[in-house]
């Protein structure tokens, strides 16, 4: 089954790597963008009984088209449940979410994330979106998988604003703060895959992406990064995994330049749905999903 391909982009590699963090039968809290692509890959390949939970109130959607947003009509498509945010967020605070995918603009060695502001909170250099559901998921999901670009400046000693708790200041601090979830289990970046030491709760490098230079990676981390003695290359995407992503999102809206393509071009947008409809039907049928 593992027909690896070299025909992939970096966002596709990241999405596939995140997908592999999702196990069959699990319930995962998923936003749009890369997490959605990862979830879709998981569902259509190794985790057919995994289900998505979407923040505005959907569980288990099985759509034939690309979601646009966490409150999007598409999330209702053949879902098991559609209703309130309270339902899904209440379930997640109660520990029913096995895995959640979150992100941030900055991260520290304990996996604490900032998605609120760069610079001083009251006079920000860059104002960002704020927590959204990220703080909630970081607080209460059984485990989180963090995805982010690694740009050389955002693996920091201290985040400018701690939006979403990782392991806070180290061992035992989550429990002391009253947090019920397990915290971050993995960080998937444009350079590699990181996990957290069971004892110190500090991040270490587990896998490095093909073609990434280890020294450059280390230079892109402000602290003295621990490296796994068993450091391996990140597993490549399979042909099927890449096919799934390109079938659902042929214009690479989430993993490429689709948004630039579509801005103002209504005909291209309508065509995207028309073109992807039959391939998606065939994909769903081939997987016994419809």
């Amino acid at each position, binding site marked *: 089954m593992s027909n690896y391909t070299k025909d992939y982009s970096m966002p596709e590699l990241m999405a596939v790597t995140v997908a592999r963090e999702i196990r069959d039968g699990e319930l995962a809290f998923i936003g749009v963008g890369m997490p959605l692509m990862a979830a879709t890959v998981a569902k259509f390949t190794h985790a057919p009984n995994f289900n998505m939970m979407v923040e505005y109130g*959907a569980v288990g959607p099985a759509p034939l088209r690309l979601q646009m947003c966490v409150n999007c009509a598409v999330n209702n498509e053949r879902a098991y449940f559609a209703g309130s945010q309270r339902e899904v967020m209440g379930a997640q605070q109660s520990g029913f979410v096995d895995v959640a995918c979150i992100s941030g603009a900055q991260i520290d060695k304990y996996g604490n994330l900032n998605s*609120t502001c760069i610079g001083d909170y009251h006079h920000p250099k860059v*104002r960002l*979106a704020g927590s959204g*559901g990220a703080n909630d998921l970081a607080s209460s999901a059984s485990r989180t998988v963090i995805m982010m670009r690694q740009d050389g400046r955002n693996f920091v000693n201290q985040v400018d604003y701690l939006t979403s708790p990782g392991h806070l200041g180290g061992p035992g601090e*989550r429990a002391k703060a*009253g947090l019920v979830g397990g915290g971050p289990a993995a960080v998937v970046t444009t350079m590699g895959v990181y996990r957290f030491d069971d004892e110190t709760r500090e991040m270490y490098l587990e896998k490095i992406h093909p073609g990434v230079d280890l020294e450059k990676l280390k230079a892109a981390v402000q602290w003295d990064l621990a490296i796994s003695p068993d450091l391996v290359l990140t597993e490549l995407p399979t042909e099927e995994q890449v096919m799934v992503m390109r079938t659902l999102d042929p214009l690479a809206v989430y993993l490429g330049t689709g948004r630039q393509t579509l801005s103002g071009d209504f005909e291209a947008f309508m065509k995207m749905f028309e073109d992807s409809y039959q391939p998606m039907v065939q994909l769903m049928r081939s997987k016994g999903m419809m």
Partner: protein
Amino acid sequence: MRFQPIPIQEGIAKPPAYKIMTAKEAITKFVQEDCYLGMTVSAAPASLIWEMVRQRDRIKTLDLVITSQIGMSSVLIGSGLVRKLEMGYNWGGIEGEDKVFRRAVEKGIPRPLEVEEYSNYGAAMRWLAASMNLDSIGTKSQLGSDIVKYNPKIKVIDDPYTGSPVSMVPASRPDVAIIHAARADEIGNVQCLGLYGNTDTLARAAKHVIVSVEEIITSAEIRRMPNLTTIPYYYVDAIVHSPFGAHWRESTYYYHHDLPYGLDVYRQFATQEGYEAWADKYVHGTKDWNEYCQLVGYDRLNRLRLSENKYQKFGEVR
């Protein structure tokens, strides 16, 4: 004797009276200067937002409370109406970076914007508390984060039974809630179809509730499946009939998100001048939602409807 809707009386429970009015009438009647306004984005109450922007000279100032907003709050913030934003999240979603929000917070353009910040669930719990007439409620979110540090309205206390830390948030009771939904009858029984986020609790938390809907249906249709009623009539002050009333965003079972339009709008919103040019044309340049739809083009809207209905239609699996 026919059952006649009776006139609106004073009192907390809104009577089962005829409540259909235009967006202009509803906004004029309920949204006043310094209004504490609650809104959700599932679906987006675009026709009501446009009308507030048209009336910005009268309304002048709003304090806005949301959980998460994707896109639509930019239109209000860009208009200069919003003095304060209580929120969990505010960004463009798939449309990208919200430069209107950034300008307001970073540079005070078009006016300074005070932000009071929660997690999404923390923000949502504020309406849940108000919906039950509680003054506050707890959540296991926000603990250990800087959200608590920078928002003194969140109080971390020990649960009186177990001693476990819990972050309390104060109830939010908006003066007015603006909501977009699928269907309602003329006395204000509202059905949200599909995902509805925090719409149910917002409607229960607010003092006055304006709901724009895709369709007006009969009370008999409401009575056919009472399990689908999301907001019973006693919470609702006004029903505004706004077909395609969430454009550029989506309305489940009715039409799809108009992403090319949204992306283009966000491109224009990159500058305040761009915002004003868009608003001049699409908001101030149209007298009501129907004119806006004509400007966007009913042919285009209809294609979004056909696209949505190809994938899903209420009561069917497609």
